[in-house]
């Protein structure tokens, strides 16, 4: 068996048209500008040494483990290129982007000058990346409603 049951990006088949739904869709419905849903990002757990195929970001979590991010459409290709010890975690992790250091500081006790890093965000385990003023946060999707509520609430406190 092949673990294809973890694949998120589907082509319609057998006359069915499966509809993808983001875990954050409801939680971010009334999100202010600057908060974006990144849940559809491709996310892969890689064990062992990790190369970096083009078009991917590698967050090394431990010496023998990494979170690889890529475009959703590229997951299949990247999975192939990364070798055997790869698990597609695209569906496991929700993702969102927030803007502003102040907002991020209300979500996590992380050193924002030392990102990317894994740590607690809104009291749940997460991986955080930084691009200037923007922060991408990936976390277990079952916490999506909780994290979404915390982020919106924190943003409201700063508004």
């Amino acid at each position, binding site marked *: 068996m092949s673990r294809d049951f973890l694949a998120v990006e589907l082509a319609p088949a057998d006359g069915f048209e499966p509809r993808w739904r983001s875990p954050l869709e409801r939680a971010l419905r009334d999100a202010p500008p600057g908060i974006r849903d990144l849940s559809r990002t491709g996310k892969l757990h890689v064990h062992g040494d990790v190369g970096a195929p083009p078009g991917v970001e590698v967050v090394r*979590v*431990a*010496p023998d*483990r990494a979170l690889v991010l890529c475009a959703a459409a590229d997951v299949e290709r990247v999975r192939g290129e990364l070798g055997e010890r790869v698990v597609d975690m695209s569906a496991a992790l929700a993702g969102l982007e927030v803007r502003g250091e102040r907002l991020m500081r209300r979500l996590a*006790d992380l*050193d924002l000058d*030392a990102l990317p*890093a*894994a*740590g*607690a965000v809104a*009291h*749940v*385990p*997460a991986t955080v990346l930084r691009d200037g003023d923007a922060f991408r946060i990936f976390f277990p999707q079952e916490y999506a409603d909780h994290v979404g509520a915390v982020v919106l609430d924190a943003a409201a406190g700063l508004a």
Partner: protein
Amino acid sequence: MSFLLSCPNCGPRDVNEFAYAGEVTSRPAERPSVRELATYVHFRRNVAGVQQEWWFHRFGCETWFRAERDTRTNAVLATEAAHAEPDGQAAPAEAAVPDVPAV
């Protein structure tokens, strides 16, 4: 508590990000007597001083490592990523990972 532990992968973090799993203990190499098994399962040194202990970075990299900590001061003298001891000299403790509130 809020002392800091230096995760070998993630660097210094508040202790509440981690799960504590007790002293590093020794699993018997062969079938123990009832008494030896009890000693292994239930008894710890509980020193007031430096001890070797297990930690799991629950809210971070999710890896196990060992720390050398002075239980009188909570000063963490060293941390080291766990390394395999296939003969089982060091063994996980009996307790399941405790429920620690996150920061």
